[in-house]
């Protein structure tokens, strides 16, 4: 399954990427699975997702929790708690 990943704020700075398209292994079912898989991809991902509980996630531009199933999402974004306004 090919999916677009987006990174914002310090998650973006730590991964060194604004976005990328990846092919997910079949055993990646939830957002948590995806984070674990990303951490296996290199030290920059380990650093970005070190405190995975503070990372917020949006599935197709809607806020979701880490136990949400990825299903047929087209894009998944990772970012710190928002600080606009």
């Amino acid at each position: 399954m090919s999916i677009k990943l987006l990174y914002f704020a310090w998650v973006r700075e730590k991964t060194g990427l604004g976005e990328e398209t990846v092919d997910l292994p079949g055993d990646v079912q939830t957002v948590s699975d995806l984070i674990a898989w990303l951490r296996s991809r290199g030290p920059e991902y380990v650093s970005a997702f070190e405190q995975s509980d503070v990372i917020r996630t949006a599935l197709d531009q809607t806020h979701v929790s880490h136990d949400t199933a990825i299903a047929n999402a087209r894009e998944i974004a990772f970012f710190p708690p928002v600080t606009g306004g």
Partner: protein
Amino acid sequence: MIRVQQENFDIGAEIEGLRADRTDIGAIVSFTGTVRDTAKGATISTMTLEHYPGMTEKELERIEAEANERWSLQGSLIIHRYGPMKPGENIVLVVTASAHRQTAFEAAEFLMDFLKTNAPFWKKEEGKDGGEWVDARESDDVALKRWETAEKVAE
């Protein structure tokens, strides 16, 4: 109405646009968020706002729709800027118009509380010691909680 833009906005012109030719409005509340020149004692030279194009608009529309479901509003407006800004500049504008003042005040506070915790914007403050991402404030989560049990306000 919602707008996400890099350029500045004119508070007075936006309020006048919202109320134009209306005679059923009794109360208009505006909230403007601006860039402060200090944070944690350090001087800030530039504040940069990053956002998530596409999701930002969706979230602001969702938040505005929610406010219009909870309160009887004659009009509402959210404008949020992104990109680099200097101290004193405008970041965000919320305007609400209603028949009565409590409604307009509550809806404006609701919009800001939800925007602060849900709209995908991130602030980076730059001073002489480099840049730092702003931490989310716990008080913003607390502010949000008061709306959980709030019923729709009767007119």
